[in-house]
């Protein structure tokens, strides 16, 4: 690899947070410090939110009910993603490329009362 191209073993530190009950799937913890690769090892492209979701299922989830987080390899409907406290639809959704220090918050929408 050329010296100007990042290698896939470089990692980016980010914060991943869960709310609305999703924290129960992730060690019952709201806030996680996570290091993700700068380049997705499978697609060899810059690591984005889509890759992060797969990464969380492979590495961070502690509950067997992964279908409460992903369905058909995508985030299940009814989960809001906030990138640095702003709705991910403003940022390109799954295509958003993760930056160092990003805070990514997954919120399960509630309907009870």
């Amino acid at each position: 690899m050329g010296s100007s191209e990042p290698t896939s073993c470089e990692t980016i530190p980010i914060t991943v947070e869960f709310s609305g009950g999703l924290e129960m799937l992730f060690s019952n913890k709201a806030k996680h410090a996570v290091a993700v690769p700068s380049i997705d090892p499978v697609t060899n492209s810059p690591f984005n939110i889509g890759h992060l979701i797969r990464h969380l299922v492979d590495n961070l989830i502690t509950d067997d009910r992964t279908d409460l987080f992903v369905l058909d390899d995508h985030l299940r409907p009814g989960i809001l993603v906030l990138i640095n406290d702003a709705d991910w639809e403003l940022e390109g959704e799954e295509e958003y490329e993760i930056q160092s220090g990003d805070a990514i918050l997954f919120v399960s929408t509630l309907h009870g009362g």
Partner: protein
Amino acid sequence: NEYENRRLTDDEFDRYSRQMIVPGMGKEAQLRLINSRVLIIGAGGLGCPAAQYVAASGVGTLGIVDGDVVEMSNLHRQVGHATSRIGMKKVDSLITHLKDLNPLPTYTPHPFHISSQNAADIISKYDLVMDCTDNAATRYLISDICVLLQKPLVSAASVQKSGQLIVLNCPPAQQGLIDKPYPPCYRCCFRKPPPPSAMVTCGEAGIMGTVVGMMGVAQAGEAIKILASNLHKPSTSTNPSAPPSENLCQPHLLLYTYDLASGIGPYTFRAAKMGGRKKNCFACGENSPSTLTLEGIKGGNPNYEQFCGLNAASTTL
């Protein structure tokens, strides 16, 4: 001034004096509350505290919609009901309590569930709607009607140890307008409901009383603020005194997480910034006048149960 010809009665002065002297309130704000009509949909864990504080603050008309009756298992959180009223319609039970708390407002019971058939007729009679319901299908229905009738919507939800709250459609703007930044509707923020398997109700999953209580009181706080400060009325040449609606065109979603094993901390409350009206929103976006109409809703289009997967679910249960 629109209320010049109405004076506060001695009773009103006495009852509301402590909130009228708060900076930013005053006689005019109190008169705005007295001239307001609020609809609370759902007389449960959210609706009980919401109704207590909205009624106590002195809104002129308070309508309450709910088809259920009071049950024993409601009473750990639904503090506007009582053991002696188990079996009574929730709207009647709650209004009994509210009338003794504050006899001045007009209370209107709607003792049935809100539906595609009746929603527009009911909501059209009010100035502001509070969504205190317990299921996704109803939440989409209420939001769609609020878009079409241009009503501000204070929406909250709560399950287990989590709560959420957001002010939508405030100040309301005509359906389909996208020439300026306008506030989002429920669909702008929550485009698709979760699959039925991931939707949990308070009955199935449980709920801490104080969690849903916090959200209900907070809802009342937002409703009172909107009506008292005229935040639901956009500034116009005929209404120049209305303050700017500040951050309501890109409102924050309040997230509350109650932790049974530790104290309050920096993650207990969070505020997440949501976008404004979305160009492609089914209910309020550019082409929405062709996809969502009052006539369509009354005729069963969209089908909210199907949208939320309830038919599919009920065939497998």
